[in-house]
């Protein structure tokens, strides 16, 4: 029964794993259909690496970053200890306990040292889990707990705790004792049977429905030594289970009446098997994806590695994220999340929608806009990538996600901010795809705010949000325009730039600032501050130009949102 259930669970696990692994080749940020090509290429690259001197790097990474968790240790001793306790503890439990019969020739779970080791490793896991729960409950302002994080903690907790519980109940169970005696013991007399029982009650934690005689314990010990001790070490070696069993003493007969031991055994086993069966679709897939991500990134050479492999690598990386929040703690712009009200600014919160994006699961237009803004509001400081314990090249993931979203025709006004400096440095590799989104968003902005006749009817005067309305001092002497190095580039600047700086200041003073939102001048301003420096009236020309650009980009963003709302009918 158990064997066949185990096999079923294992094959469900295997099927899920095959599905997941195939998704690493099938899926991509852009949604191309080249799975087979990527599959062949990926496996041949992996094969080549395995049979080359690179195997040294692979083994080193697996040892240092995989088993010893070097990257986590570099970030935080607490997180390292927490994870290592759970990881090593659970791995050792699987080897020495779950697979005990396969690993050890004469494995008996109640004999020494197994009785001790199981409790030792189980306690390691519990301590680690306690640290993990504490870390998440402390409510570090940037750490979000997803349902998957909760599942992972609860699943391990239930598996390990049910194990301790089972052992504790077993120690006191008279049913269990009687069954064992029937099966393995042979007594010369009734008294011998009573003696063994007395020994077990007094020394081995058993709870008997009848009173036992203290005097028989010594004799019982002899029988125990000759018949039971080979398989039964003192249960105190299982320190935690034994401790737990003491609290159950009054309930012992009740437990036996409902056959609690057997039921608990089934619970423990079934939970383990279910967790195994669904493993590929849970956070525990990281047992496979993280070592892969670590190895691939250690071998990765951005100049020589194949672009098809890059896509496969990024799909593995998405599955290698364990949502630990290390990247977010390091993020240079993490404090932009609150004022902007977009959680996708945080690197650790970008992965989930990206996963949905690549697997073509539902993502509303609003969610698409949020993730696009999220991946774009990034200074490309590389800190997320450097700190990721799973070795994910997050910055490159954001870069590819941006381009993929642009290719879908989504527009992000922040593309017209200095955040685009990094994209500009990489213009050559983007080839013809580089210019398109810039031109599109520009055109949209200019078209939206094209000066129309009706704009020039005096609207109500609007103050600038933060900037002093210093433009009131402007008497249109044109000094700002005359010193502007951008204006100076053109023979007929007004044809290229729309309104020129002095005109913009004038329009502001007239309360017509929205009329200049669509002026190319705002998008061509270098913010070199020459105009502001030169103004005889102390007008903060550059700051005002920057403020106007901000307002224009915000208005455009708002418009994008409205459009989406009207399409989706929200």
């Amino acid at each position: 029964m158990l064997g066949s259930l185990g096999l079923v669970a294992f094959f469900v696990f295997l099927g899920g794993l095959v599905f997941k692994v195939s998704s690493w080749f099938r899926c991509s940020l852009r949604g191309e259909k080249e799975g087979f090509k990527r599959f062949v290429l990926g496996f041949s690259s992996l094969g080549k690496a395995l049979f080359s001197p690179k195997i040294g790097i692979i083994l080193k990474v697996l040892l240092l970053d995989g088993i010893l968790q070097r990257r986590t240790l570099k970030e935080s001793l607490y997180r390292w200890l927490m994870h290592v306790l759970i990881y090593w503890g659970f791995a050792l439990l699987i080897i020495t306990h779950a697979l005990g019969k396969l690993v050890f020739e004469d494995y008996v779970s109640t004999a020494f040292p197994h009785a001790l080791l199981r409790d030792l490793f189980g306690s390691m896991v519990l301590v680690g889990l306690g640290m993990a729960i504490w870390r998440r409950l402390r409510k570090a302002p940037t750490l979000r707990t997803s349902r998957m994080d909760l599942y992972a903690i609860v699943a391990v907790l239930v598996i390990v705790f049910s194990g301790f519980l089972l052992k504790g109940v077993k120690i006191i169970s008279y049913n269990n004792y009687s069954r064992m005696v029937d099966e393995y013991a042979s007594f010369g007399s009734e008294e011998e049977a009573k003696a063994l029982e007395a020994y077990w009650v007094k020394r081995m934690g058993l709870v008997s429905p009848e009173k036992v005689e203290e005097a028989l314990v010594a004799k019982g010990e002899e029988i125990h030594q000759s018949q039971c001790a080979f398989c039964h070490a003192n249960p105190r070696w299982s320190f935690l289970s034994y401790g737990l069993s003491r609290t159950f003493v009054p309930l012992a007969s009740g437990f036996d009446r409902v056959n609690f031991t057997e039921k608990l055994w089934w619970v423990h086993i079934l939970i383990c098997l279910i967790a195994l069966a669904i493993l590929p679709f849970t956070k525990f897939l990281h047992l496979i994806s993280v070592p892969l991500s670590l190895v691939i990134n250690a071998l990765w050479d951005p100049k020589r590695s194949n672009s098809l492999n890059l896509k496969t690598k990024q799909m593995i990386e998405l599955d290698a994220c364990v949502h630990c929040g290390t990247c977010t703690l390091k993020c240079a712009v993490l404090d932009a999340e609150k004022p902007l009200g977009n959680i996708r600014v945080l690197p650790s919160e970008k992965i989930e929608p990206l996963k949905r994006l690549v697997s073509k699961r539902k993502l509303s237009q609003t969610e698409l806009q949020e993730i696009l803004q999220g991946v774009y509001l990034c200074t490309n400081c590389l800190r997320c990538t450097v700190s990721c314990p799973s070795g994910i090249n997050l910055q490159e993931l954001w870069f590819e996600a941006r381009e993929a979203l642009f290719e879908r025709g989504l527009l992000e006004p922040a593309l017209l901010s200095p955040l685009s400096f990094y994209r500009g440095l990489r213009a050559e590799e983007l080839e013809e795809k580089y210019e398109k989104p810039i031109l599109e968003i520009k055109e949209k902005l200019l078209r939206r705010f094209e000066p129309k006749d009706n704009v020039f009817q005096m609207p109500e005067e609007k103050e600038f949000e933060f900037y002093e309305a210093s433009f009131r001092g402007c008497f249109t002497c044109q000094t700002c325009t005359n010193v502007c190095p951008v204006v100076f580039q053109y023979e007929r600047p007004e044809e290229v730039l729309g309104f020129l700086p002095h005109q913009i200041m004038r329009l502001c003073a007239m309360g017509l600032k929205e009329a200049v939102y669509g002026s190319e001048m705002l998008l061509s301003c270098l913010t070199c501050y020459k105009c502001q420096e030169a103004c005889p009236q102390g007008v903060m020309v550059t700051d005002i130009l920057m403020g106007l650009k901000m307002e224009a980009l915000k208005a455009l963003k708002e418009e994008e949102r409205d459009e989406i709302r009207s399409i989706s009918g929200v």
Partner: protein
Amino acid sequence: MRYALFLGCNIPARLPEYETSARFLLKELGVDFKEIEGFGCCGYPFRVIDLTTSLVLSAKNLALAERENRHILSLCQCCYGTLKKAKKMLDEDLSLRNQINEFLKANGLNYRGTVEVKHLLHVLYKDLGPEMIREKVSNPLSEIKVATHYGCHSLRPSSIVELDDPSDPRLLEELINITGAQSLLVNKRLECCGAPLLGTNDEVALNFTREKIADALKNEAEYLCVACPYCKLQLENFQEKLFGKKVLSTILITDLINMAFGLQKAH
């Protein structure tokens, strides 16, 4: 004076040699500095996205340095200008400061307005002084002609950054002369490098880069001295595209002084 070294985002990711050479130089000059855990984006790119966000980002850095009782020492013109501007706004408008401090609360931070923001050039020239640098020159870089590039936000708006005369500064030239090299007063030394528009308006951005380099070459410069990662990356990375090959080496002011100190071999 104690400083908090503010690296910003570009230096660690794309110009780590600037950090190395700055640390080298500051150590040699006996400056008390350290990097503070938690420093993030200065807020510069967010000034055209959302002013509140930009100010929150700036204020966090200011508050972090303030908590450690250190003045910010920036190696980047744009970080410097942005932090200075934010400081001015937050110092002058208390209701704005309170509004921004609300966002910092979650981090246990509070900006009070006691921290100063300084650029490396300010620290070298004003806090330490040219004499202190001159004393350490053991390997004068004679006969090297160096054109200067200030970087806009180190000079303008002068009412905020207050580094040197915005129309005719001499600070960078003097620092170069101290090293024994010959500084060149090139026409375009106060112009923009083009970086602020890279990625949004490459035509304008690269025009400025081209003119800048051409101007330095016309004056027979062998090096173009910069003190900002944006300027350095912009002026270094597009020469091939603009001139077909690398025509002029840009050099960081820290590298130049380190060379004069005999700390690093000439390129």
